[in-house]
């Protein structure tokens, strides 16, 4: 018999409606798996139930858990840090309020990179998060616990944040589906800020269909976050997909051969017209993203950097130090260029619905290779991991990551679909189409 926690949200909902399973069964199944997997992956920071869910609603009875940066009134949010260890929030984040209203359970807080400022899943304060496929490899970050918990079937879905790839990198490395939303799609009220011009909130789940269920619940305007857009969050997953744009030559020249093979094969699996385009200037747009991220993150952390810099890990402290050297005029010029680059992006897509590329162009590295003992090659390895995600944050457009194969070490390979502003519906419909044709999303790690 199928273990209840291994179902997708859509499958679990159907069984709840037919009364073949109860909400208690789902929770108990998740609890058993958390007990077995937590020593291996360290995905959870706290396993106390924070919200018991409701009997009605589109997510009624579905156990979720979230990155420990979504505040809940009266509860601790450590933000993966030493500085906020034991800090109690005074209000609940808009995204959690909406999931509560949709009926979901919140069964704990998940590990994350310190202050969401790291792409690997290392954490000096709460312990590294281990990849469920092999804990000696990185989970990707910063939503490390979210991806690990969803991949290991400890929860059905999770919220992450994405400022430079923090939903997509861990989704790719752990083999789950992750949606980076359009900047301003989901209210950031009550979520820990990192870089206000780039921060987005999005779901990680087993499938595009499940991401759509979570996305519908959390998206929409919120007067408490005045940057949210007044855009509909309705999703028609049967929306037709006509053309996919890609840059095959770039993929074959710049990606690892195993990644290139998997991604090009995945492009064909959609069964739609493929159109070759010049690749966006990934490295230029990534540099612009980093300029904004570093300047804004360092401003956000300025007080603690002056008074408690010793309480940051060495890696996060070094990233924050860099931001104080960025001239304001350069930062503002990069922001002024942003609208022109979005128009250029929409012209690149032209008649295509989405652009397809790898999420990470190299095999997933180990924790040691990318950690403090990574040696002189460590910065280059980190740059390879983040090369294809930051450009999307600079544009502010949405992107969906889906599993599409395995690398030579048995770690997942992630496919990235990037869309126009507010084109989450198109991405999710394309993702559903891909997952109807393939079964990579059904593969799950096993306990040794």
């Amino acid at each position, binding site marked *: 018999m199928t273990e209840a926690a291994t179902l997708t949200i859509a499958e679990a909902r159907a069984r709840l409606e037919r009364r073949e399973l109860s909400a208690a069964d789902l929770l108990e199944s998740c609890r058993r798996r958390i007990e077995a997997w937590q020593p291996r992956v360290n995905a959870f920071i706290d396993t106390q139930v924070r919200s018991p869910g409701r009997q009605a609603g589109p997510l009624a009875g579905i156990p979720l858990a979230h990155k420990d940066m979504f505040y809940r009134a009266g509860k601790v949010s450590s933000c993966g840090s030493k500085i906020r260890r034991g800090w109690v929030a005074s209000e609940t984040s808009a995204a959690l309020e909406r999931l509560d209203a949709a009926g979901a359970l919140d069964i704990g807080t998940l590990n994350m990179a310190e202050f969401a400022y790291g792409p690997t899943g290392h954490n000096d304060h709460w312990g590294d998060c281990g990849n469920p496929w092999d804990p000696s490899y990185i989970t990707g970050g910063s939503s490390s616990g979210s991806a690990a918990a969803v991949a290991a079937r400890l929860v059905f879905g999770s919220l992450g944040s994405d400022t430079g790839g923090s939903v997509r990198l861990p989704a790719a490395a752990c083999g789950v589906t992750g949606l980076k939303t359009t900047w301003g799609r989901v209210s950031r009220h009550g979520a820990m800020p990192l870089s206000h011009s780039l921060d987005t909130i999005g779901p990680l789940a087993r499938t595009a269909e499940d991401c759509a269920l979570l996305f519908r619940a959390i998206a929409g305007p919120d007067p408490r976050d005045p940057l949210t857009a007044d855009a509909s969050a309705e999703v028609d997953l049967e929306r037709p997909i006509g053309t996919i744009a890609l840059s095959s030559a770039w993929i074959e020249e710049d990606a690892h051969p195993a990644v290139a093979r998997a991604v090009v094969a995945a492009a064909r699996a959609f069964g739609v017209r493929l159109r070759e385009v010049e690749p966006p200037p990934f490295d230029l747009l990534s540099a612009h993203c980093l300029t904004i991220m570093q300047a804004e993150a360092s401003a956000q952390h300025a007080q603690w950097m002056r008074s408690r810099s010793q309480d940051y890990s060495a890696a996060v402290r070094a990233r924050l130090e*860099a931001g104080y*050297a960025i001239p304001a005029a350069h930062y503002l010029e990069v922001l002024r260029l942003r609208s022109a680059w979005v128009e250029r992006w929409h012209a690149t897509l032209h008649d295509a619905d989405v652009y397809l590329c790898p999420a990470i162009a190299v095999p997933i590295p180990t924790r040691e290779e990318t950690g403090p003992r990574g040696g002189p090659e460590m910065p280059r390895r980190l740059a390879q991991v983040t090369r294809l995600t930051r450009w999307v944050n600079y544009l502010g457009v949405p992107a969906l990551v889906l599993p599409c194969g395995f690398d030579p070490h048995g770690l997942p390979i992630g496919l990235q679909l990037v869309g126009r502003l507010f084109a989450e519906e198109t991405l999710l419909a394309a993702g559903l189409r891909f997952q109807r044709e393939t079964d990579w999303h059904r593969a799950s790690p096993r306990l040794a």
Partner: protein
Amino acid sequence: MKNFTSHTIETLLASQGVPLAAGRGERLAAGVNDLYVPDPLRAELGFDVDPTTYLKTRNQP
């Protein structure tokens, strides 16, 4: 504008009251210099464009 040195970095951080460990300035300078990448759209950037122009572009129907 790739001309940040360790001394510039140390001065900038000190002026903002942010402590910097000895020897860190050189590595930071290299990282900050790497952020200056020639952008072909810079020459076409209109005088009236400001950071909020992005919001207007985003909110166009």
